[in-house]
């Protein structure tokens, strides 16, 4: 937390080296997370770049007492991804089915758990990714997703149960009971 605070102070004082280190340390993970939301590698990279650019242009809103800097970054990224979806919904003719193709191509390289994971709702994918891959705490998830901690708990349970149901239906029951 203290490191986050110090790093944030340097970012706010326009320290490009500090921001570069912040970018290097988090860009790949943020991009992987965003790919789960937008389902498109190129779009995920664009959203990731927009997220860092937004923070660099106007660094405000981070409160160390509410969570980590990485949690704050992922929260901004999630909002930018939601905007990406809204724009995409407004101009579907411009997008064509490129996103779908890339998504299908992406899932083809997934393992079985990846197939099951890809069939979850976006919100559940986002939540499970942040918890299982990024290891965000309940409090950080609440801050990122702008929901109460109690809701984080219940939604995580619902997401796991849904993933478990899909996973079982694809023949992994026996494997899981070995």
């Amino acid at each position, binding site marked *: 937390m203290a490191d986050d605070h110090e790093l944030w102070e340097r970012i706010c004082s*326009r320290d*490009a080296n500090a*921001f*570069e280190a912040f*970018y*290097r340390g988090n*860009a*790949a993970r943020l*991009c*992987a997370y965003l790919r789960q939301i937008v389902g498109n590698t190129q779009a995920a*990279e664009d959203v990731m*770049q927009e997220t*860092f*650019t937004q*923070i*660099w*242009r*106007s660094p*405000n809103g981070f409160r160390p007492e509410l969570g980590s800097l990485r949690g704050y970054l992922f929260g901004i990224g999630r909002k930018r991804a939601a905007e990406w979806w809204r724009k995409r919904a407004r101009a579907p003719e411009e997008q064509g089915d490129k996103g779908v193709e890339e998504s299908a191509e992406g899932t083809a*390289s*997934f*393992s*079985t*758990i*990846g197939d099951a*994971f890809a069939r979850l709702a976006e919100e559940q994918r986002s939540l*499970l*990714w942040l*918890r*299982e*891959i990024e290891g965000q705490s*309940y409090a950080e998830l609440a801050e990122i997703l702008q929901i109460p901690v109690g809701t984080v*708990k*219940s939604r*995580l*349970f619902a997401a*796991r*149960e849904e*993933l*478990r149901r899909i*996973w079982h239906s694809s023949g992994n029951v026996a494997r*899981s*009971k070995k």
Partner: protein
Amino acid sequence: MNCAEAAECVSALFDGEAISREVAAHLADCHECRVRLNEYAEMGAELRDMASAPAPQAIPEGRWRLAEPAAANNWLRKWRGTMRIPRFAFALMLGVIFVLSGGLALVKARSVARGPVLVLRARISGRGVVASCTGRVTPEQDMCSFGALAPPGSLTASLRFISRDGDRVQIGIRTKYEPPGKTPATGYDEELRDVPLERFWMDPDKPLSVPIAGFGTMEIYGEFRDHEPPPPDPDATLDPGPDELRIWSPFLIRDNRILADMSFAYAGTRVQPLDLAIVLYVPKQGRFVFSLKPFDGAIEADIQANRIQFAENGHSYLLITGGPVARTGYAHVWVLHQPEWRPVGPGDLADHLFVSQAKLPDVLSN
């Protein structure tokens, strides 16, 4: 406790959250819940394995370097950043502005307080301001009489300036409330003829509450001004409304002879449709009906700011008013002169100079 109740806690337990003893006891004995916990762990491991499976991507060059920093949105930081004069000089400048503006406000207040014109506004509950009266504070004089709906009945009142003592003023008020169903008298003064004058001292800064028998209270707000405000009320502007015809303080001349001089008299078709007219009655000369819309029998007259000029039967007429007659888009007004017309009223009371507004069809029908 059953598995369904404990299931959400299994998820929480997997995340390292604390669970109750009751749930812990259930988990110790429940095979199904332990399977769920194991599957959560297995799914988590698979997910992490999946996330780490792809070959690490090269991190692209950050586009953030191309972005210019946004303007500071913290006003204090922004202010400090753009401050170009010494802070002491800035503080001194603020102080000077404050002192000067305070002095100006004081001068303005004194100027108004010493004004020879008294403006009184009458306000009743549920109707707001029902009358505005203006008059000079010397000598003692009637300022206005008015009637207003005062649900469920009607109210008639008159205001009179009596005397002034410094910033205080003594006014005389007559009021009469009539319940619904009573036919009002033909004039306000006649209605109030038998009502005694009540005297009140008031400080124009404070509203005066006047009790009215059978109704409640009427509040009077006072204000001294150093000039005569334009009609129809103290807050109106000299500029007439878009389709308004306004005659204020008319001064009527025929050839070289003055027919009427009516200081402070006012009539206007303010915020009204064009079928309204203004009637100017001059004893022994009949009435003049003015309208911005042509109508039967009327002749065209020219408007020049505060003047209306027309010719009839070899006579030239010039009506001079206290302000613009209409907006500049109106170059003409239509006038009907009815020399034989006389008001219908009780005796001498009716045969006086007056100017008023009325609907054009009503005027032409009587």
